[in-house]
Each structure stands twice: as structure tokens, then as C-alpha cells.
């Protein structure tokens, strides 16, 4: 009996050496493997929003096609989490970081940390309030986009009537820029009257409830302009449920759901942020920088938005539209 246990133990030990050897080989081989493929870390706010998902997917696809390994990390708009993710990227010896950041001021430290560790960051979609830290900052021109959306709204409204504005999260820079773009354009038409402006925090359910309440006070509104598509969808659901499906709703972002809604003749227009293009450009510039030591472009770059309406919605595909 004792002999038997002994032999089992020996067998067990012998068996154990196999994975141990493999592990050792793995550890020794790891740097060699890592050298073969460089890593690009892609840090984004949340994959739940189709916009950020499209952004991450596009960056990942582009990086893979250029022969990089990718690592997608999510910070959920939490600068502390973002900082930890940067530590991860540094520890993994990433060659470059593509970042949609968690706050214009709160992100500077993390980007600086990566720079000190020798890792260049390429920012997309949102800027930081510092220059010379990131290699590139590529953003869509939110102001130009808002002006574009507002002009279409004016046209649809026939330059007159009462309307409501739904604003994004008021702590978010883009919410302010878009609202300013809308108001700079709309205030030029004296017969267009803004009867209410409310924040719905970029949120669909909140936009639904707020619109429901606002139309109690202003049952005769002719239009509603929204700071993003998620809120536009919530607002339109409330309007439709109240039998006001003919109210003119214009959104911002160019999300697939709103494209569907435009096809169905419900929401009238949205402004497409060329997020796929932004992402691809960032990866291309990262690639160029890693190969030549230069990005070949200015640090701050803005890319114009495109209007999506029934005329061109047929050419729409996940945050890009064919002319």
C-alpha cells in the first residue's frame, strides 16, 4: 500500500515536470514572441455606446491589418480607472496607445506618464487641455457639426415655430460646444422660438421622461433638436407615444439606430461624426510614427462632420456614409 502511494507520487511529480518545463520555455520565449508583434493599446470609454464600440472596433481592425497585436481597455469615463489602465499598458510594454480619454484635464497626467515611459499616445474623439504631451489629437469638429445639424433643422422647420433643445451631460465639453453651435445658428432666425432647454445627460430613458413632461407644458412644439442620438431616440419615442410623431427631431452622432429611424421616416436627420475615419487615422499615424519617428501631421487635427438625412441614408454603414 505504502509502496503504491510512493509510486503514484513519483508519477505525479514526473507529470508535474512537463507543465513546469513548458512554463519555463514559455517565459524564455515570451520576449522573442513579443518582439515579433508590437502591441497597440486601445483605451475607450464604454463599449455599450455603439459610437465608442465603432471607434474601438475600427482602431482594432486597422491595427491588426497593419500587423499589430491589440489590447482593448475600457475606462467607463473614470479617470482613476484610466490611470490604472495606462499602468497596464506601460507594464505590457505597448508600442502606442490610442485613447478616447476620460476628461480633458483629468487625463493629462496619465498621458504624460505614458510619454515618460516612452509610449506615444494618440487621442481620438476628445481633446485634452494640454499640448505637446500626446503625439496627436484627432477630434471631429463638433461645432461645425452642430452648425450643420442646426441648418438642416432650420430648413425642416421652415424657419419658424416653437422648438425644444435637449442638452447632453452638462459637465461634458462636447455638450456645451454642440449646444453653442445649435444656438449660434438658430438664434439668427427670430421666428424660431426655443421654449425649453433641458439636460437629459446623454441618456435615452431620461430623454423619454423629460420630453414627456415638456410636451405637457408646450403641447404645440414643432421641433426638437438633441445633443446626441441616444437622447433623440428617447425623445422621439415619447413624442410618438403622445401622438406627436410628426414633430421634427434632429440628433447628433450618426448612430445605426437613428439611421434606421431616418429610413423609417421618423427622426429627420442626424450629424455623423466620422469616428471610423478618426480611429483609422490615429492608428495610421501611430504606425507611421513607430516606423519613421514622425506622424507627418500637426498634433491637433479636426475632421468635419457629415449630415445624414433621407437623401444619403442609403449609403450609411456603421458610423460612415458613402457620398
Amino acid at each position: 500500500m505504502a509502496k503504491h502511494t510512493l509510486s503514484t507520487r513519483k508519477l505525479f511529480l514526473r507529470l508535474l515536470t512537463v507543465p513546469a518545463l513548458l512554463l519555463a520555455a514559455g517565459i524564455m520565449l515570451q520576449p522573442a514572441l513579443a518582439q515579433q508583434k508590437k502591441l497597440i493599446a486601445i483605451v475607450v470609454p464604454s463599449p455599450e455606446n455603439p459610437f465608442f464600440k465603432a471607434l474601438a472596433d475600427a482602431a482594432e481592425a486597422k491595427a491588426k491589418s497593419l500587423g499589430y497585436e491589440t489590447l482593448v481597455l475600457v475606462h467607463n469615463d473614470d479617470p482613476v480607472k484610466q490611470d490604472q489602465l495606462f499602468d497596464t499598458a506601460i507594464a505590457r510594454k505597448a508600442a502606442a496607445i490610442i485613447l478616447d480619454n476620460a476628461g480633458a484635464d483629468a487625463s493629462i497626467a496619465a498621458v504624460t506618464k505614458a510619454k515618460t515611459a516612452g509610449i506615444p499616445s494618440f487621442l481620438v474623439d476628445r481633446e485634452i487641455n494640454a499640448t505637446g504631451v500626446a503625439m496627436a489629437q484627432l477630434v471631429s469638429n463638433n461645432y461645425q457639426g452642430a452648425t450643420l445639424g442646426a441648418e438642416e433643422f432650420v430648413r425642416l422647420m421652415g424657419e419658424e415655430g416653437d422648438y425644444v433643445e435637449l442638452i447632453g451631460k452638462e459637465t461634458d465639453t462636447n455638450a456645451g460646444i454642440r449646444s453653442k453651435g445649435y444656438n449660434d445658428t438658430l438664434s439668427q432666425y427670430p421666428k424660431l422660438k426655443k421654449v425649453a432647454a433641458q439636460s437629459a445627460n446623454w441618456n435615452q430613458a431620461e430623454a423619454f421622461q423629460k420630453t414627456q413632461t415638456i410636451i405637457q407644458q408646450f403641447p404645440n412644439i414643432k421641433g426638437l433638436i438633441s445633443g446626441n442620438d441616444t437622447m433623440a431616440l428617447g425623445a422621439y419615442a415619447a413624442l410618438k407615444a403622445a401622438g406627436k410623431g410628426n414633430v421634427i427631431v434632429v440628433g447628433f452622432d450618426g448612430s445605426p439606430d437613428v439611421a434606421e429611424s431616418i429610413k423609417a421616416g421618423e427622426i429627420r436627420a442626424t450629424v455623423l461624426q466620422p469616428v471610423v475615419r478618426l480611429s483609422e487615422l490615429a492608428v495610421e499615424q501611430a504606425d507611421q510614427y513607430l516606423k519613421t519617428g514622425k506622424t507627418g501631421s500637426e498634433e491637433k487635427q479636426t475632421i468635419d462632420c457629415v449630415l445624414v438625412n433621407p437623401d444619403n441614408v442609403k449609403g450609411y454603414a456603421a458610423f460612415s456614409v458613402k457620398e
Partner: protein
Amino acid sequence: MHIPAAAPVSAPVKPSGLSLGVLLFRLRALIALCVLTGIFSVLSPSFFTQQNLIILVGQTAINAIMAVGMTFVILTGGIDLSVGSTVGLAAMASGLLINRGLPLPPLGVIVYFNVPVIITLSLALGLLVGAFNGLLITRFNVAPFIATLGTLYVARGTAQLSNNGATFPNLVGTRELGNTGFPILGAGSVLGIPIVIWIMVLFAAVAAFVAGKTPFGRQVYAVGGNERAAELSGIYVTRIKMTVYMICGLCAAMTGLITASQLVAAHPGVGESYELNAIAAVVLGGTSLAGGRGTIWGTIIGALVIGVLTNGLVLLGVQEFWKKVITGLVIILAVVLDQLQERLQQRLALRRA
């Protein structure tokens, strides 16, 4: 569990010799509701109209239904932080079943259900989440706060996984598949009153009956009042706790279905931080977080107070940041009053003794 001597242990509170002060305190949520309604009616002409009141109650219903379930949990001295995620999970389940059906790989078919079955299945999912919470708390002795915090993440993650983070849009169903009609739940009305409000009334009435008039209800109060004593007197504490979390999950799933139906879309992020609204409604309604004291109708009034605040502040066009400050202050005031009531009652009890 330590319970102060003066705290009532049995359910329907039958105060002996009600003084005016105590009465006013007890009705504080109702008084707050009347005061707020008065203020908003004066400040905004479109507040006290039949149509706005219907909408207001409809908006409240979403929170109230969740809060009804939460009341049972809090009455036992527990807490359920996972309700917001359960809202999202149930919404996504209904979206999945309507737009994609239920794939059964072994048989190689996709089953599409009609809307009543979809609603039942989504509600059952809520029960399941509740059962999971109950199991963790009763069998594995995990503190309710931690167990349901864990479930908060698990359920939210599952909701996001169900469509890889994307929304299930346009939940109108297809006539060929026989699954049309889902939007009626959120947008339809019976006798001029939205179905959502009927659902709230139904949930509240059944819950109030169960809590106040049935042996189960009394046992819930007993467990919350003094768990050890309840156990010694022969109450199956485990079974009671299991049931309250399941009720809570069911109520949350109902809220999820309503939200998905109203938006005619299921978004995986829906219901985020709803658990806090539900807890606020319960506390505003006078239910003690220590358990053993509170009523369902109090919770409904608490939810209405929050609803009136939200609706009224929107009508007045108050800035978002101020809305938060005001809502927070109202909740704090309610809890402070709650403590004052407790002290007042203790003093009265001492004087009588």
C-alpha cells in the same frame, strides 16, 4: 441584531394614544407630497393639469414598482443593490426574445414566443436573479450589501453580453412571427389611464395586502424586527428571506419590461443607478433601513414625492445640477424627520411607563 426597546416589532403599527405630533410625523411623506404639489401648482400653470398628473404618476410608476419590491427586502433588514441591473437584464431579455428569438442549438431551431410569454419569461428571469441573491445571502451567509453588489455587476455584465453592448432597436415584432404588440405595455391605456399606472396599482395593492394581511407579511416584519426571536418562534427565516429577494427581482424585471416597451428599444445601460432611486423612495416613505418598520403605501407616497420633484423641476426649467441638490436635500430631510419621530415615540413611551 440590536433593536431599541421602543421599536415596534409587529407589522401593522397600532399606536396606542396617538398624539398630534406623532400623527404629523407619521404622515410627513404625505404632507411633503401635498406641499410640493402646492408649490409646483403655483409656480407652473401646466403642473396641476389632468394630463400632466397622469404623466407624472406614469413616470413615478417605474420607480414605484421597483421600490415595492425593495420595501420587502428592507423590511427584513436587508438591501438589494442589484435591482438597477436587473432592470437592464430584463429589458435586454425581452429585446432578445422579440428581435432574435430563443435559439435552441441542439434542435437547430429558433423559437419565437408571443408577447405574453416573452413578458412571463423576462419576469421569471427577475425571479431567478432574486433567487440567486437569496441563495447567496441565506445559504452562503454573504451580507446582503455585498451579495447584491456582486449581482449588480454580474447582471449588468450579462445584459451587456447579451447583444455585445448594442441596443435591441425597434421592438415592434413581426406579424409573421406573431410577436407584435410589445409597445402597448408602455404606451397603451385602459379607461384613459396608462397601463403602466394600472400595473403600479396592481403591484402596490397586492404587496400591501401581502405585507399587512397575510401570515407571510407578518413574518417579514418579524424577521426584520428581530431575526433571532423570529427564528426561535418557529419562523423559517431562510424561506422568508429567499422570498423577499425573489419578489424584489420580479418587481425590478417588471420595471425593465416597462422601460424597454416605452423606449421601444432595449439598451444594456438602462436602469443604471435606479437602485438608489428605489431605496430613496422606500426611505422617504418611512421604512426603517434597520428593518421591521414601514409600509407599502408609504413607499408609494415616497416614490410620488420623488416623481413630483423630478417632473416639477423639469417644468420649471431648473438646471440639472440644482435638481440633484434639491432632490438630495429632500431625502436628507426625510431621514432626519424619521429619526426625530423615533426619539419622540421613545420619549412618549417612557412617559407612559
